[in-house]
């Protein structure tokens, strides 16, 4: 009897898929993890047993249907098993970012009212314990990695393996336990909550997005079909475990398609593990691709002259023919031969180094990706596409189909998703995986849901002629200069961020006379440039303040202004003045979110004196800024930040109307 029998068709929960996969893909790999330098593999059947033992252990400890269980840590097999184990008991897994500070962690655990927490190691145990009095409902903490925990009081603390042992004892004592667990899994109609994912919102406290089982499964099925994922596919689970992207792309899609998920040895070894695993499906935010490109370029700077020339030559070939070859468009024979040669000499080895040799489908999302950057990877033969998603949607809202890929859009609506634009230009959607509301926050849920059941994304967008969606900014961030010109800060920021030596940009201009920006230089790229030019520097702060660095930035700003001048709707928002910030924007200081999104309002408040200086014409400004070190201590950095003027351009004559 198969899992599909009971529910009358395909599985509607992830544990049902687990049972199904353990039958149809019994001996095929489900999970890999590099431990002590060796890749360990679990088949689907073994994975089912691991999950089952842990689930029964949890039940023996008293976990019941509907109760919440927190999961805190990096990508490790046992933490993923904890998801399925909880779901198999109809309990609700609540993943939390492993780098969340104790306060944030406590907020989520308290808000979700968790009774159990499965955590990675001593570090997380310590965090949870330090917040014990704020978490009266937390009864048991279960850890994966025992190091350093030997002498802890184990009254309310258990090792993962010990919990599994409890589960096996329960089975040994009464074989019916096993049966009842399987029956319980099969009996579900998928209406239960399958996870609560907390958003790391750009403003205010994070909210728990409630996802239900059948909807989540349905969403994952439709995209897995869209990209034709099968049990032969491989992914490397390296994205933050608590992020919807990881939960969807790795966990959910793995369960519905039977693909094999690999967990890296440690967060530091991801690049190496990527090469070893050679995933066929890959996701990374634009900044990861950016980092890869930077590191490739830096390596080529150090290469011998022959290699360098070869690289340059074939990069040009790739630029000319690469994307056409990838999309199967017609390419002249000469181009095909040149590209094939380049593939042999450059692209192939490069893909191999990056761990991209076997990639069939790759996605990027989260923010705009530079057109050059996007084309670079596509021209190397990596099928990189864009998607637009939200936690509330259980990820996919739009995605690009093979062969219909563009750098400046995020594609048409994903399968089974409806999208519309509100009168104010805000993107709204309805999707198969959409949430049922925010946990314990009726009010907020109502704010986001329209009366006819659409979700307001808060993003401003436009459709192009082909029905592809183009996101321009957060709806609430789109503003106007005092002279009435449209000001879309993100649009300007992204244009600047496409320069490899610019890491972060914050633009100001709403309700002001002109546009001014804060810049963060990219320490790797600019540091490398400094090294090549024999410029010494001791810190980020010193490097950022160098006149030659300012000169470089001025060139970038000028270039962006020139571009903006070409676009009639944006030409009024050219950058007048800029400064290079004396510190990197940091999540520990609350300046960016854990997913590296700038908290605009907070930054504006924190650096108010600098903004004032940008607009009052002064040429420099002394500031003191409080910073948080990684260990939680606070310190003060002092700096005199220089402010520079930028060249602006006449608005170009509108040559033709922009496509609607």
């Amino acid at each position: 009897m198969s899992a599909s029998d009971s529910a009358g068709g395909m599985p509607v929960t992830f544990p049902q898929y687990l049972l199904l996969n353990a039958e149809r893909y019994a001996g095929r790999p489900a999970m890999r993890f590099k431990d002590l330098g060796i890749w360990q593999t679990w088949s689907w059947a073994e994975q089912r047993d691991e999950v089952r033992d842990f689930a029964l252990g949890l039940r023996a400890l008293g976990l019941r249907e509907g109760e919440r269980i927190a999961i805190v840590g990096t990508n490790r097999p046992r933490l993923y098993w904890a998801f399925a184990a909880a779901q198999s008991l109809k309990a609700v897994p609540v993943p939390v970012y492993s780098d969340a500070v104790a306060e944030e962690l406590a907020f989520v655990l308290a808000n979700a009212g968790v009774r159990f927490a499965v955590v990675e190691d001593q570090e997380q145990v310590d965090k949870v314990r330090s917040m014990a009095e704020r978490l009266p409902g937390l009864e048991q903490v279960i850890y994966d990695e025992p190091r350093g925990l030997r002498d802890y009081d184990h009254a309310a603390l258990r090792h993962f393996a010990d919990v599994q042992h409890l589960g096996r004892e329960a089975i040994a004592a009464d074989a019916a336990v096993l049966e009842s667990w399987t029956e319980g899994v099969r009996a579900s109609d998928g209406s239960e909550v399958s996870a609560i994912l907390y958003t790391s919102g750009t403003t205010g406290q994070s909210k728990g997005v409630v996802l239900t089982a059948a909807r989540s499964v349905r969403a994952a099925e439709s995209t897995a079909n869209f990209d034709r994922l099968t049990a032969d596919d491989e992914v490397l689970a390296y994205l933050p475990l608590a992020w919807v992207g990881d939960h969807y792309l790795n966990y959910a899609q793995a369960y519905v398609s039977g693909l094999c998920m690999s967990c890296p040895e440690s967060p530091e070894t991801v690049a190496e593990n990527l090469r070893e695993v050679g995933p066929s499906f890959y996701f990374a935010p634009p900044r990861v691709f950016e980092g890869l490109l930077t590191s490739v370029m830096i390596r080529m700077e150090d290469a011998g002259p022959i290699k360098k020339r070869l690289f340059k030559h074939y990069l040009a070939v790739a630029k000319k023919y690469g994307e056409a070859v990838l999309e199967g468009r017609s390419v002249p024979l000469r181009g095909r031969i040149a590209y094939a040669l380049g593939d042999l000499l450059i692209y192939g080895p490069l893909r191999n180094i990056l761990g991209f040799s076997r990639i069939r489908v790759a996605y990027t999302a989260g923010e705009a990706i530079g057109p050059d950057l996007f084309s670079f990877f596509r021209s190397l033969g990596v099928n990189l596409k864009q998607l637009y998603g939200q936690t509330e949607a259980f990820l996919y809202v739009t995605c690009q189909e093979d062969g219909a890929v563009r750098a400046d859009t995020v594609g048409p609506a994903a399968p089974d998703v409806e999208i519309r634009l509100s009168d104010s230009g805000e993107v709204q959607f309805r999707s198969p995986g959409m949430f049922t509301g925010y946990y314990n926050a009726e009010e907020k849920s109502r704010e986001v849901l329209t009366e006819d059941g659409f979700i307001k994304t808060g993003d401003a967008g436009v459709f192009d002629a082909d029905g592809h969606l183009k996101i321009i900014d957060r709806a609430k961030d789109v503003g106007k200069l005092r002279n009435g010109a449209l000001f879309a800060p993100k649009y300007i920021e992204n244009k600047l961020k496409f320069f490899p030596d610019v890491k972060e940009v914050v633009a100001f201009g709403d309700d002001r006379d002109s546009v001014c920006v804060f810049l963060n230089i990219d320490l790797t790229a600019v540091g490398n440039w400094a090294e090549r030019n024999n410029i010494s520097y001791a810190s980020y702060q010193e490097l950022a303040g160098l006149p030659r660095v300012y000169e470089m930035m001025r060139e970038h700003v000028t270039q962006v202004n020139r571009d903006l001048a070409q676009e009639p709707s944006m030409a009024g928002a050219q950058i007048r003045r800029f400064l290079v910030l004396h510190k990197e924007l940091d999540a520990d200081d609350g300046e960016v979110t854990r997913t590296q999104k700038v908290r605009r309002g907070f930054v504006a408040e924190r650096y108010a004196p600098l903004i004032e200086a940008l607009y009052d014409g002064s040429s420099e400004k002394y500031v003191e800024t409080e910073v948080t070190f990684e260990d939680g201590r606070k310190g003060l950095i002092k700096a005199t930040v220089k402010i520079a003027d930028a060249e602006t351009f006449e608005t170009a004559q509108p040559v033709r109307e922009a496509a609607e």
Partner: protein
Amino acid sequence: MNSPAAHFSLHGRDDGLNPGDVLLDVRNVSLAFGGVKAITDISFDIRKGEIRAIIGPNGAGKTSMLNVINGFYHPQQGTISFRGEARRRMQPHAAAASGIARTFQNVALFKGMSTLDNIMSGRTLKMHRNFFWQLLHVGPARDEEIANRRKVEEIIDFLEIQHIRKTPVGKLPYGLQKRVELGRALAMEPDLLLLDEPMAGMNLEEKEDMSRFILDVNDQFGTTIALIEHDMGVVMDISDRVVVLDYGRKIGDGTPDEVKNNRDVIDAYLGVPH
């Protein structure tokens, strides 16, 4: 299937000593280079299972003391007993063979070799298969290599340095080199681990990491540790007993609290002239 967490033990040999018994006894040791006295008539002991700190201002003779213990220097007077056996002259490799491992103030690693090879070199004394087997790389020599590699991987995991397994250590930042060096010493499964300023040149975070590793080594493997350290704060936090040297003489010995309140020690650290 294999569980992700390994069962991990690096205990030294079973020498019949119980925690608290004297492991190393230094008796009236004096050392001079030409006419310059580096150490004068120093006596102290190190007990099994403890973390013993040797502190003192610059030039107090701390490193000389460590070099005497592991056989780099041979004292002119006095005896050193390790596990009850007294010795006068001992070569460093013999000290290593008897269960004493150490790290160095300025990091002495094999810079051209990878992290893995460096830590593997700590297993030198644990590998016995003769060389013809090794040449063939089959049979018992292969099993031995695998068993030792496993131990080394456990250490790599313990010290959280998986990402630099294959990196030549010469390319690593200083803090990581210190960690690799600790790894190599741990690979020897020593009874006594000598650490020469394990936190020198580190930032606060690295110091905290290193302190945690030292405590974990002591706690999990029961390794006896003698360490020299400059940073008084760290020393007082992690050690069980402290010996204070000044100008080659012992001026204090006891628990951190006792030492802190010792008049001579305070004077030495505040620079009161003798």
